[in-house]
């Protein structure tokens, strides 16, 4: 199928600012879905609120654009009721880890077969550039005119500790890797988390003098290195990319089906 066939052209033009990384994430996601030959009727995308969450409008799947932070809770309801559907949940950093932090760790704990994409642009974009849980100390935002004092989450470490069975990180600079990792995350059975560093030149980049979109993406190239690389040993400041966790563990819907079988055998 042509990539274009996965898009709702009626929804375009999209609302993202020029230079925003989220379009690259959409592109990577569509390539991933295409490479897996997935049928559109089998795909459900559930999103929350924010720039990232508008991605659900642009894909020609069953799409549920929900409440800020609550996408994973909605997705859990869909997945439990229709386990045969592929459920993808794109979230922003604030969406996933501030207001949605509780739902995030519990979805990971359950190991429910959902693919969570954390589109990390380190800022609340849609509402005008306030700091998020991933902004990082010393960074500027409209609610941190003097720099934040908030520490940030390490998304892969948090996801892994909470029980996610597939955990990865990539960036909008590494477009081929992005599509491959999302494809792996979709085919993984269990809760998968992919953190995608995605530039926000409008609010984060401008405020923190990180230059334009190209400059921000080049920074992803310079500041990251593959998981377990020698470069990381030499320079601990580098951020690792790639797959951190890929393990098998009992999946929630399958385990619940066993509960149903036990209940019915007893009845």
């Amino acid at each position: 199928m042509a990539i274009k066939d996965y898009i709702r052209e009626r929804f375009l033009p999209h609302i993202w600012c020029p230079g925003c990384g989220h379009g690259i994430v959409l592109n990577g996601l569509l390539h991933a879905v295409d490479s897996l030959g997935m049928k559109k009727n089998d795909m459900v995308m559930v999103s929350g609120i924010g720039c990232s969450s508008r991605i659900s409008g642009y894909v020609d799947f069953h799409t549920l654009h929900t409440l800020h932070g609550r996408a994973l809770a909605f997705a859990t309801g869909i997945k439990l009721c229709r386990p045969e559907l592929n459920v993808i949940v794109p979230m922003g950093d604030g969406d996933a880890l501030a207001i949605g932090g509780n739902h995030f760790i519990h979805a990971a704990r359950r190991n429910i077969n959902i693919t969570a994409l954390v589109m990390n642009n380190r800022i609340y974009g849609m509402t005008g550039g306030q700091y998020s849980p991933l902004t990082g100390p010393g960074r500027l935002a409209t609610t941190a005119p003097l720099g934040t004092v908030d520490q940030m989450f390490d998304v892969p470490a948090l996801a892994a500790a909470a029980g996610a069975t597939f955990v990865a990180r990539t960036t909008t600079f590494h477009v081929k890797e992005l599509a491959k990792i999302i494809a792996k995350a979709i085919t993984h059975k269990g809760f998968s988390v992919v953190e995608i560093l995605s530039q926000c030149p409008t609010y984060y980049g401008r405020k923190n003098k990180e230059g334009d979109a190209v400059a921000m993406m080049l920074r992803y190239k310079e500041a990251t290195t593959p998981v377990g690389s020698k470069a990381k040993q030499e320079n601990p400041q580098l951020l690792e990319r790639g797959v951190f966790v890929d393990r098998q563990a009992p999946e929630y819907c399958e385990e619940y089906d066993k509960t149903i079988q036990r209940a019915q055998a007893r009845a």
Partner: protein
Amino acid sequence: MSSNVRFVQGNEACVEGALYAGLDFFAGYPITPSTEIAELLAGKLPKRGGKFIQMEDEIASLCAIIAASQAGKKGMTATSGPGFSLMQEALGYAVMAEIPCVITSVMRGGPSTGVPTHVSQSDVNQARWGTHGDHSIICLTASNHQDVFAMTVEAFNMSETYRTPVILLFDEIVGHMREKLRLPEPGEVPLVERLRTSVKEGVNYHPYLPREDGRLPMSDFGGVHRYNVTGLFHDMWGFPTDNPKIVRELTRHLTDKIETNAEAICRYKSFFLEDAKHVFISYGSAARTVRQVVEERRLMGEKYGMLELQTLWPFPYAAVREACAQADSIVVVEMNLGQVVDQVKLAVDNKDRVFLINRFDSVFIKPENIIDLMRLIQGKGV
């Protein structure tokens, strides 16, 4: 005794009603005094292939229910005061996206954690006005277990009919008291399934284009129609819009689909109203006390009568107005500072004859509380 007669708690009657109505999916978070509903369903649902999940909080619970419904299943959650407050955000989403679901709140006293283990009727206004924005809502209640069962089935039926969340408000006495429940035979009580679209695959389906009768045929997720569902104002395709005309029309639609059907939605019971000079209006467990007072005083020649409300929202203004037209006094009995009494005053012409007899100290209202105050209202002195 017939095998379909049981001795149960009100919470169990609600569970039986939900199962009878075809409940497929329950997501919830434990909170007194509603918890038995979750506990019972955790065991009963898997036996029939349904699913139960204990979510991380009440917000997640209602979100999961809404999504389950969008996937074609009948969903319910159960909670109480503070948990119901947490659900208000998702309740508004279900209203806006027009997704059927049932929310039971077994009321506790508030504000805040309040009194978890005793009786109150303090969620009436929360049920109506808890969400932000303009919309209407359906809220049902009951005073005995047979009615708890019936109203629970009604809640599912109305939810599927009008594509709206329906709230069941029970109070702690009704939830925890044990009494007889006769389970109807399958087929004895009619069940409503949502209207599903007959539009075939490949043909344009407009998920938010109402038919002439105002109903919206639904297409479940996972089916052949892929469309967008959002909490934003949306056009007939489900696409977000801020077009003033669409915003105005959708707001009207969300209100009118319930208000114009108020007569069909409103449930109430009348006791001795034909010649009543003193009309009591009550609901939930308070109505049981009122009924006892009315029956006893009738024997003593007092022209007492009662209208027991089973639909709280949309408020049955017409029924209340009619019942009170000839009344010397109109006495609302409820266990809060007066949440229904305000609506009664809106309904009747003789507002100066409307009185409130209430308790809000977490103690069940007793017949003597009513009798003492009736002496004052009737000018008999104390």
